[in-house]
């Protein structure tokens, strides 16, 4: 059975149709064309498909596309302001917090969610908050440094 879904995706009203048993991850990638949503494990362990659904950080591989009806979806494609990268994106580049890049969109969304909730996280808090995102390249250290640095910059920006 095909389902017609109307959602707000990265601020735009989007309609797509998908199969009833199709995951939101597949629908976002293949029906909406948002390839920043990556499939790693497909079972909610790796976090590469992380998005925000009505503001909650979730693995889109564990959400049905049909569930997005009337809901708000945020993916990595909505993070930058046009050509101007989000602070987290800039800091990931500066700190070389990625190599192959498959995990990066998920890390960015998870880190953004963390920093909105907790603007000055400790290193331990960052590591716990990002425990649902796996990276097989960096050894995590550069990712943690990038998030720490971004937190400092974002806090300064808020004070201005």
């Amino acid at each position, binding site marked *: 059975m095909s389902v017609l879904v109307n959602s707000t995706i990265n601020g735009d009203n989007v309609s797509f149709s998908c199969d009833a048993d199709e995951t939101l991850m597949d629908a976002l990638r293949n029906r909406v064309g948002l390839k920043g949503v990556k499939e790693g494990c497909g079972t909610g362990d790796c976090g590469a498909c992380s998005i925000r659904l009505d503001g*909650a950080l979730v693995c889109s591989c564990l*959400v049905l596309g049909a*569930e997005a*009806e009337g809901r708000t979806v945020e993916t990595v494609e909505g993070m930058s302001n046009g050509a101007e990268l989000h602070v987290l994106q800039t800091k990931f580049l500066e700190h070389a917090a990625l190599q192959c890049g498959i995990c990066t969109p998920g890390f960015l969304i998870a880190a953004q*969610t963390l920093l909105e909730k907790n603007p000055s996280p400790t290193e331990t808090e960052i590591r716990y908050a990002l*425990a649902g995102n796996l990276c097989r390249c960096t050894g995590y250290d550069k990712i943690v440094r990038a998030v720490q640095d971004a937190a400092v910059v974002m806090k300064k920006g808020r004070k201005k």
Partner: protein
Amino acid sequence: MLYESPQTTEDAVELLSKSKGKVHVLAGGSDLLVRMKGGYIEPDVVIDIKRIKSMNTIKKTADGFLIGAAVSCARMADHQALCKAWPGVVEAASLIGSDQIQGRCTMAGNMCNASPAADSVPAMIAAEAWALVQGPRGERWVLVEKIAKAPGVTTLRKGEVVEAILLPPKYKKSGDAYLRFTPRTEMDIAVVSAAVNLTLGAKGVITDARVALGAVGPKAMLVKPAAKAIVGTTLDDAALAKLAAAAAAACDPIDDKRGTIQFRTKVAQVLAKRAAKIAYQRAGGK
């Protein structure tokens, strides 16, 4: 497959009762979608309960906290009154998976998935939580320890769905705690777990207690002799030793690569003692 998202419990029950083929309830989906993808189940109908208002709210009433079956564990952790009243239950629920999983997973789903290692279940059992079950013949209240029957199997009947979990009101001078053993600090499943909930009377004497163990049998279980071992005591060393012995006696674990029978039995004793100490402190005991 058909996807349904009813707005009321009545509609959900009707869909569950009348749908043909394999019907599954979708709460958070962190177990259901994994099983669908792995080919373990092929539902004909999936009923998403998240749009049902009574299933998507936490309500504080005179009877306690009524937590809707579709309320995510992340939302429980954001509920201050609930965290204050039942820190052990909220900690247990917060241990399930990553932040991503927390945004979706539910205690009712954790319970109905009926894994012996489910984190929130021993904590709910210790808290004497009840499940509000709705079905074609009306509602019934079932103690959480009576929901799981065997690994992956529940006592729910055809057409029935859990609408909410009821945690009793916080009693004066009471406290609860949940601990689990995992080889990793995050993103892991309990090898052994223990939950303790107790109430103190005069001079720090325990007047009432409930002890539950997880992952040491086919389902999470209430261990009455373990509770009996500490009631009437101030949780002194002798009481703790009796508690540990009773916990060990209740263990009937599997032997696998994650933990041997001997290891699980030993750790169950340690966790039961530690959880009892935390619960005792939270109840105001010294």
